[in-house]
């Protein structure tokens, strides 16, 4: 088996490295594609918020739509840009617990002054 004089690697090694490099490059390109799609989606959703604002919907309907759009955006950023989908599920649960605490505080405090 011919040996690479620079690295000492055999031809088989070089071939495997080439395959490995190609695979890494494929993974990287594929992730760039994913990131780009997510970025475009985020820009569209941000624009949609203002678009719905201009439609003059009722307050409740508008708040509902905004909440949905914001939630989708947050999920996209956290899931793909922060790689939460690749992390152990326990990290997601920890962040959801934190979010739950905020919602608990806001909802309970908000309710406490209704009809008071």
């Amino acid at each position, binding site marked *: 088996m011919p040996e690479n004089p620079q690295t000492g690697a055999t031809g088989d090694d070089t071939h495997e490295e080439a395959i490995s490099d190609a695979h890494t490059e494929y993974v990287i390109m594929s992730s760039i594609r994913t990131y780009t799609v997510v970025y475009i989606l985020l820009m569209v959703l941000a624009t949609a918020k203002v678009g719905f604002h201009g439609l003059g919907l009722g307050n409740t309907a508008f708040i509902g739509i905004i909440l949905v759009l914001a939630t989708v955006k*947050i999920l996209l950023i956290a899931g793909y840009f922060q790689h939460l989908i690749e992390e152990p599920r*326990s990290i997601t649960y920890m962040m959801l617990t934190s979010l739950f605490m905020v919602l608990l505080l806001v909802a309970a405090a908000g309710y406490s002054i209704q009809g008071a």
Partner: protein
Amino acid sequence: MSELPPRRSLKRWLVTTNHKDVGVMYLVTAMFFLLLGGIFALVFRAHLWEAGGTGLLSGSEFNQSVTSHGLIMVFWFLSPFATGFANYVVPLQIGADDLAFPRLNALSYWFYLFSGILFMLAFFQGGSFGGGWTMYAPLNVPTYTLAMEATAGSNMTIIALMMFVMSITFGTVNFMTTIHRMRAEGLGLWNMPLFTWSWLLTVWMMLFAFAALLAALLLLSIDRVFLTQYFATDQGSSLLWGHLFWFFGHPEVYIVFFPALGLMFETFQTFTGRRLVGRKWVIIAMVLVAVQSFLVWMHHMFLTTINLEIKTLYMATTIGISLPFDLMVFALIYTMVKGRVRFTTPFLFSLGALVLFILGGITGVFLGAVVLDYEFRGTYWVVAHFHYVMVSGVTALVGGLYYWWPKITGKMYHEFAGKVHFAAYFIGFNLLYFPMFLTWETPRRVFHYQAGDLIWHQLATVGAYFFGFSFLIMFGNFAWSLLYGPKAPDNPWKFSRTAEWAIPSPPPLDNWPGRPTYRSGKLEFVDDSAETATDGGEADDPAVATDGGTTVDDTETDDDDDPIIMTDGGTVINDEVTDKVTDQPVATDGGAVTDATIDADSADEAATTHEEAHIDHASIWPFMLGLSTFIMFAGLSGMTDVIIELFSTEMTNHLGQEAVSDQASVGRIADSGSIRPNYIAAFLGGLGLLLVSLFKLGTEDFTGPTMNIAERWPFEGIDTTKFGVWVFLASDVIVFGAAIGAYIFMRLWSGWETFHTIPSAAWPGLLNTYILLTSSFTVILALVMAERSNKKGVLATLGATIVLGLGFLGIKSWEWAEKFSHGDYWFSGIEYSMYYVTTGLHALHVIMGLLIGIFMLYRVYTIDAYLGDNRHLEYFGLYWHFVDIVWVILFPLFYLM
């Protein structure tokens, strides 16, 4: 090995990052604050000797004394005292070399110490804060009433507390990461020692509760320094503070008490020679309390205008939280019944704590009932109740000091003197606090009471001095111990069960003679290099149960006099508690077993290998960061006058001439022209030093502990630093959530539809949304470029991120400037305050992100950092994307709704 100076050198204590050193510093500093808080109490108790006061203190001085006593004891003594134990003991109990982030740990301590110095400095800056430790609004802001006065000193108190909470946040991130990521092989969660369990739950509670307090204090500091209106209006300010403070405040009770509870579990096991009865149920009960602690906060607000439905609901949840405690109390009692009690000093304090806690708990149930609370709220009943609860925690922690004293100092204390201390302590405690139940109609925080209550108050004052005196016995005992005390063996307690007792007293700098492992069911120290040679180095043994069910060969207990130490988890090696003191093996607790005897030769051999891991223990930069932040905050506290000076005309337009002149007059610290420049210089100088220190910290070569083999459930499959970043972000979610929640709450109070929104157009917000989203995309591209080791690519994408961040700030500045040009400032009204503060807080996060980004850009440019190893870029990205997510919420909330 480390270049840590010897213990006798002052330099060592300035540079050390070792968890044991930091633990000792925490303990010593906390004891100092115990004395300081105690002196305040003795002074105002002396003032209370007569109805209406003896004249020892003026009204304002009385307010400051009571407030300072409360703040010092709750914040600067109780939690840090427990943190000291946790620092020292938790890494030992779980088999770690140190905390996950040693420099962050030192930083946490220095923030704690300097926040305490800032607190004390307040008395010399026109007077400290006097609005009570609960800091109720609107008494907590100068704009509403002159009673609190806008002195730099009272600002300083609030800012000192904010700095203290930052210290807690650092500690929380560190302990969460350490306990979840660095448990020795075979040490599953169920098997963890109970003190570590209690501390784990404490830091989980801290994570959420203290973040809410941090948000509240941030808003309050901004109110005080920049004169925003969060807590100054009659449009819900008081309730807003109540919700934010008590969302933290009630879990704080358990945050303070849980470490004490964990200590009681440890000492009860050790001194009854019996595994804690119902151990797993006790753990479940603790978890339940930790969860429930966030569901009861409104029982502190029964006397406010919150509606009856929510009061009733919170009454039910409050009653509910007492149930898991019942289980724990009965577990302790039954453990005594089943075991053979040895009445040592640590046990006496633990038993005393149990008795006091039962009394405190029962009297608290009265306050949980709405109707009874209407009577008791704001009276000495509350004072007596919470002292029985909180100081019962102190009692257990004092027991902990005796318990771990031999381990920490290597010296034994005087047992008889310890028992005398307990007797004096217990009598003094009850003489001080029990009469307060009897004089319950006395309103708290005032020094006027009915003449018929004189005897109770005088008894309480006598008790206070007796109680204070009892601590002199303790200090005398410890001084004697250090000077003349006999040398402590590795394990002075016959039936102790946890790993800290398996190593010398005091433990060596690197803790272990090899890699600790529980894979065989008992603590062993492994020489990984030898193991690699013999069996391939794979240390995992699938047969070992990591979560409770560890199997132990009971024949191992027969051979020697050294105790088999178990950390529990339900394994029983011999369920007979022996009556003979000489018989060592007792099946008590704890899962994994620590065999305190280690073959000396193998230990030495293993130590050689272990030392090769080389972790650093010294850095001056945490100290410098603490010092510079202290200087900066000291300067910030005197900025109110600067704001008034700069914006007096604008304030006149909005607040009226009278309010502004009041502000100017109470800002009497500025009456000499030389003081104000000093504050400005301190602020800017501190900020400059802070930036330099951060840079030096970032470029310092420092190796922290790593554990290649560890128990990490449920957080395996992620690297340790990244997990730490996520924990920090979880905390930041609460900080931002509370600030955003404040906006929603105040808007609901005013009427959602009729609320006046501030931005005049949506497009600047949308443009900034585009910019931030694009910057998030460029950060991700930087990550990809680093993975490809493409230096130019990283420089270009990271540089683009920074330019975009600056663009965001530019647009934000333009927006604000446009508002200012129309005369709309942050003090113009609550809606303006919320707009400027919330978006400003977000902008501050962007600025901090930019500083990190610029630093990383510099590192890439100068030393080709992160190329091929993009982990640090990913940590930065996590933060930057989080800032992006916050804007996703702020944009519609402020611009579209």
